[in-house]
């Protein structure tokens, strides 16, 4: 074993959605690769990407769309997606009232409390609505004015008939009887590179080897998540979620696992990338049509799985 190398990782938020990362941390997969990880939460995509671009972090865990926004502005040293962590959207459609057999068309004429404009959840949300022939502008009242952290409060206090929520918010709502998960945006949208690990181009050129080891550890985490059952996973990651009850964690993991939100390997596919571009384009937020190989490095992920 060589000397351990320290990598600074900035994550965009702390979420059950990123379970494989926490598994890799708590099960010691990084140490096995001779890596020591400094994990900092830089709340929000802008802060995370800024930390990466300004050299404050070696690796960023952030929505892939951010790399496209950056590339759209002639970045000199662009952020490259080198390992996938999640491969679908992570939000769920929660209804205020119990619905027996949910049809998307039921959304028509209701008030839908969505996520904020410009972010992936909002774009996927609208994309899915359109796929079900619902025009988000005319067929329903779409509220997009509430900050991520305050959406549950707004819904719980009576705003909207439907709401788009992440886990463990959705599980908590169900448990408390405040709402019922009726559909999953992740399941509807299909595979997209949703949250990925990124490094700067220069970093990849300089220290590809460390990134490969990093991706290997992530791969181990992903395999662990794939193979173990939800409660084992929940127990493994509990240290990263203080004060969240184990049953909520388990149910959240379960839900993401079921719909295949967790990528089972770090490899990003061109097909999924095209879906991402299509979704962004549909939402009118695509600044530039960026080719797959310009922003994605598959070599690292491939080598890491060997």
């Amino acid at each position, binding site marked *: 074993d060589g000397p351990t190398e320290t990598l600074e990782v900035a994550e965009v938020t702390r979420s059950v959605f990123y379970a494989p990362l926490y598994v890799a941390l708590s099960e010691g997969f990084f140490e096995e690769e001779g890596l020591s990880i400094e994990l900092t939460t830089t709340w*929000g*995509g*802008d802060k995370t*990407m*800024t930390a990466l*671009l*300004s050299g404050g972090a070696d690796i960023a865990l952030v929505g892939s769309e*951010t790399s496209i*926004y*950056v590339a759209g*502005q*002639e*970045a*000199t040293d662009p952020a490259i997606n080198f390992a996938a962590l999640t491969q679908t959207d992570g939000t769920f459609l929660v209804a205020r009232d119990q619905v027996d057999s949910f049809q998307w068309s039921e959304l028509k004429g209701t008030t839908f409390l969505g996520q*904020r*404009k*410009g*972010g992936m959840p909002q774009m996927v949300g609208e994309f899915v609505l359109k796929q079900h022939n619902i025009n988000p502008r005319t067929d329903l009242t779409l*509220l*997009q*004015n*509430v*900050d991520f*952290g*305050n959406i549950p*409060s*707004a819904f*719980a*206090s009576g*705003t909207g008939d439907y709401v788009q929520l992440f886990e463990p918010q959705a599980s908590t709502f169900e448990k408390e009887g405040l709402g019922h998960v009726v559909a999953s945006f992740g399941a509807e949208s299909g595979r997209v590179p949703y949250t990925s690990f990124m490094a700067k181009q220069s970093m990849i050129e300089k220290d590809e080897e460390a990134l490969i080891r990093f991706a290997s550890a992530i791969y181990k985490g992903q395999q662990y998540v794939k193979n173990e059952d939800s409660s084992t996973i929940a127990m493994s990651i509990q240290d990263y979620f203080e004060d969240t009850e184990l049953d909520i964690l388990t149910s959240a993991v379960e839900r993401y696992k079921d719909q295949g939100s967790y990528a089972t390997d770090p490899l990003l596919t061109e097909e999924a990338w095209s879906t991402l571009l299509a979704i962004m384009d549909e939402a009118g*937020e695509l600044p530039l049509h960026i080719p797959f190989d310009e922003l994605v490095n598959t070599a690292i992920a491939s080598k890491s799985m060997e």
Partner: protein
Amino acid sequence: MNPTKLHEQFVLEKKKEKRFVRITQITIIVVLIAIWELASRLAWIDPLLFSMPSRIVTLLYEHITAGTLWIHASVTMFETIVGFLLGTIVGTCLAALLWWSKRLSTILDPFLVILNSMPKVAIGPILIVGIGPNIGSIIAMGMLVSVIITTMVVHTAFKEVDENYIKVLQTFSASKKQIFFNVVYPASIPVIISTLKMNVGLAWVGVIVGEFLVSKQGLGYLIIYGFQVFNFNLVFMSLLVIAILATFMYIFVEYIEKKMTKYSI
């Protein structure tokens, strides 16, 4: 030298000094902007993160011609003014209440101190639950940021009114209400006005934070959206507009201050 000439010379020098100050200020701005532009263009700093004055101005121009700037700016301006007025008025009324009952003020004092050091951002959910996810919450945030500090400062001013003025009224057997409206309140107007100046700044901060929590439009919304789509040009443009508007509001308050405090105690 005769007085008229001395005065003329003095006025001339004053004018010169004023011109010098203005020129220096403009120079500072121009130089800073030039350095910024240059540093960005030559990639000493990452133009992605720091934007570039030329880009900001271009964007501003686009927003002006498209008419969208007006919408965002007027919404935020409205919220700020209402939040500012509410913060000042409610704070002053609370201060009056505390002045009225010394006992009440002793009892409430520690609560005020604690409230003052609470991060107001954290009570976002309570606002949203109480008022709903709408403009009301934003205004409430703009008010909340300034109301406690206004209460404390104005209450101190009320307490510090020279008690001899109060005694003058007492010799005429004035009631407590008469004392408040004839001495305490008018004597504190200068302090109230000077807290206005501070509140201008605080109300802006509060409203922008409020727009971070809930908003469809407004300059805070533009900032958050800019962050969301990693477009820092938009962020800097919004900050520029805020700076301009805040300056105007400050100048206006200063003007009122000059008008209202012609006398001095």
